[in-house]
């Protein structure tokens, strides 16, 4: 992408948007009511018009304005996306393209004709007459074995909802006490008040497959709309209004306090859950569940309150790059993406310094001076791309430059000089590049005012380590370097899976878990000496945590394998028992234990004891190495 000519940038952007618009219009022909498609079309038109005005494409902006207005009316529901409207929109799209690409060829009369057709299409009367609706009350109860026999009551309710507005109430009177409950049996009945323009037999069709065996009572209520469900629509509107816009400033410490308190609440609730589990009192159990639900909601809301878009941080770097590049006599473009990506506020604060270091490196060492770039056949203006996105349970932040790339030979040389590497040792790129983060390492021939002291990367590595993150470095000679920071999303409370290995209990972050499978005794013996498990045809390396933790205990007869992933790699962790979900309030480990890679922290269980939290990325790596050593030995 050339950064030079804004008009060219606009043309490319508009071309993409016109493609999007065309796709949306064509799809809209099939599903004229689809709100997403209408919005896509509107947004495309809106951007084409707005950017066009900014970059001097006045004719485009003026013309597009009319089409945008038309789709705004569709979006608001004032006008339907009728066939004639879509057809003229497609014609308008072609006209917009011509105005952008070949403005001199454009026929003004044709444009005017299109706008006339547009006006006509909008004036057409709405083609759906309001239909008469009836209000029905249904009471139904399925046979006890309906669910076991494959009927899903929730799908039935969904089907009723597709007929019209529904108010659903469950009749729980037939639910027996817990000890007598058969989990595959259907004890619940339902009462549904439905407002629909469909016929009675359409309603009965929903129950087609179970009609003969179920109790179904359908009554027609009067034709007026039923007593409105208490205030739900107005409340939603208020909530929506509140969401769009107003915010208040809160001192950061107050949010920290809130987080601490929520953490303590979660621990106490976990204790309550344990007590309720061994109680026979239904009311205690019900309340304990309710409190658990509320605690989780509070946890999520509080963590959400601490989220801040990374764009805030990125914005600061524009100036940095501008000033630095001038200082060093280089010409550099900073391109940002993923500014909306949200991170916990403490994470953002702690990323500022490492990112500044990395950007300085890119400006100073990465991007070559303009003269050198031209010799290499590159554009004189260098490019640094800063991007952020979520991937699974991590956030990925990358700093890429299109500079000269890392000099492998030089890195090797320096590493050997500094005793970090024995000469002749083979190192793949990934590992070689990691060496540049060793303390004191520097390949700079001179120390500039900006960097070169060999201090930056080590500091970055330590900062990222303290956030329990990882740094990946990729580079191509002559083409550039990309450094990717992988950070766990949340710091304070996570969903965890509690497992037992030997006598000890451990927590595995749920977000890292792909699945759990059983390890039968025969699989266990059969796989001794092998390090792979066959999971539905693919080979997954595994490690026995019993061995890694040296528990010295005998394996449980019914071991489980918890398959976890970090980035693209997976490994199976063999445990003695999977105990269950656990709301994990993360407590950091002290300096005495902080260097143990296998554990990212600790937590307090419902019975008051401490459980360690497994660091999945470390174990995945361990699993890979385990595999590599075994394979090397074979």
């Amino acid at each position, binding site marked *: 992408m050339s950064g030079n000519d804004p008009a060219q940038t606009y043309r490319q952007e508009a071309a993409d948007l016109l493609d999007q618009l065309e796709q949306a219009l064509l799809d809209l022909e099939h599903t004229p009511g689809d709100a997403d498609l209408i919005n896509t079309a509107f947004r495309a038109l809106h951007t084409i018009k707005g950017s066009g005005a900014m970059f001097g494409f006045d004719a485009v902006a003026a013309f597009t304005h009319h089409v945008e207005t038309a789709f705004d009316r569709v979006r608001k529901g004032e006008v339907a996306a009728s066939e004639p409207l879509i057809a003229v929109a497609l014609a308008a799209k072609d006209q917009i393209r011509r105005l952008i690409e070949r403005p001199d060829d454009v026929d003004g009369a044709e444009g005017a004709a299109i706008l006339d057709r547009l006006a006509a299409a909008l004036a057409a009367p709405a083609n759906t007459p309001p239909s008469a609706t009836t209000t029905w009350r249904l009471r139904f109860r399925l046979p006890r074995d309906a*669910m*076991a*026999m*494959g*009927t*899903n009551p929730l*799908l039935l309710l*969904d089907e009723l909802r597709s007929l019209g507005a529904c108010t659903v109430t469950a009749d729980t009177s037939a639910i027996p006490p817990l000890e007598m409950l058969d989990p595959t049996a259907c004890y619940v009945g339902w009462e549904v008040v439905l407002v629909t323009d469909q016929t009675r037999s359409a309603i009965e069709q929903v129950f087609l*497959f179970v009609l*003969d065996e179920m109790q179904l009572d359908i009554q027609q209520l009067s034709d007026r709309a039923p007593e409105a469900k208490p205030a739900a629509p107005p409340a939603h509107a208020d909530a929506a209004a509140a969401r769009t816009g107003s915010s208040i400033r809160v001192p950061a410490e107050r949010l920290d306090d809130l987080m601490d308190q929520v953490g303590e609440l979660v621990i106490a609730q976990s204790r309550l859950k344990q007590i309720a589990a061994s109680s026979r009192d239904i009311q205690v159990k019900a309340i304990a569940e309710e409190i658990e639900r509320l605690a989780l909601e509070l946890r999520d809301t509080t963590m959400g309150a601490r989220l801040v878009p990374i764009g805030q941080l990125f914005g600061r770097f524009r100036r940095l790059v501008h000033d630095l590049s001038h200082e060093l006599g280089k010409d550099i473009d900073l391109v940002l993406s993923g500014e909306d990506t949200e991170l916990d506020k403490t994470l953002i604060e702690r990323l500022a310094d490492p990112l500044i270091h990395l950007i300085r490196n890119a400006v100073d060492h990465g991007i070559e001076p303009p003269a050198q770039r031209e010799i290499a056949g590159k554009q004189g203006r260098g490019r640094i791309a800063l991007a952020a996105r979520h991937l699974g349970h991590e956030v990925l932040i990358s700093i890429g430059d299109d500079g000269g790339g890392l000099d492998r030979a030089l890195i090797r040389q320096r590493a050997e000089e500094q005793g970090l590497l024995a000469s002749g040792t083979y190192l793949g790129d990934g590992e070689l590049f990691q060496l540049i983060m060793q303390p004191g390492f520097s390949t700079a021939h001179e120390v500039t005012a900006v960097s070169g002291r060999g201090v930056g990367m080590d500091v970055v590595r330590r900062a990222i380590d303290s956030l329990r993150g990882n740094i990946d470095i990729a580079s191509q000679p002559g083409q550039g370097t990309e450094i990717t920071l992988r950070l766990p999303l949340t710091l304070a409370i996570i969903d965890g899976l509690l497992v037992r290995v030997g006598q000890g209990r451990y927590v595995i972050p749920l977000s890292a878990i792909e699945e759990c499978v059983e390890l039968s005794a025969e699989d266990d013996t059969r796989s001794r000496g092998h390090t792979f498990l066959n999971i539905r045809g693919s080979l997954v390396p595994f490690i026995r945590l019993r061995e890694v933790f040296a528990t010295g205990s005998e394996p449980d007869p019914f071991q489980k394998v918890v398959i976890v992933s970090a980035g693209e790699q997976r490994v199976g962790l063999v445990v003695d028992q999977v105990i269950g979900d656990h709301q994990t309030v993360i407590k950091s480990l002290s300096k005495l234990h902080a260097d143990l890679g296998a554990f990212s922290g600790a937590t307090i269980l419902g019975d008051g004891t401490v459980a360690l939290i497994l660091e999945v990325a470390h174990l995945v790596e361990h699993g890979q190495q385990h595999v590599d050593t075994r394979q090397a030995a074979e």
Partner: protein
Amino acid sequence: MSKTILSVDDSASILQMVKLTLAGGGYSVVQAMNGADGLAKARGGGIDMVLTDLNMPVMNGLAMIRELRKLPQCTGVPIIFLTTESAANMKQEAKAAGATGWITKPFRQDQLLAVVRKVLGA
């Protein structure tokens, strides 16, 4: 993750049409040519719905449905059988054996997808 449908029929062309239709709807399809084969595939687990003809060699549809309902991994799994319009008593027998619903033959592709969506969801 898409849902998996076990399609059981002794007619290769029906199997093929069903597979194409359901795959187009975003479902994964496992096939079997008779009741015994269907039962064996269901035992492997991971089946979210069964679609079966009734008239098949080796083990017919009714027998297979009865056996499927004995498998714990099939509890709650919808079983849809194919039937001709006139066979009203067949519907009763199949339901008694444990079937969930039916599709009448001959059927169009959109009708098949509609029934699948009805009992299985998207």
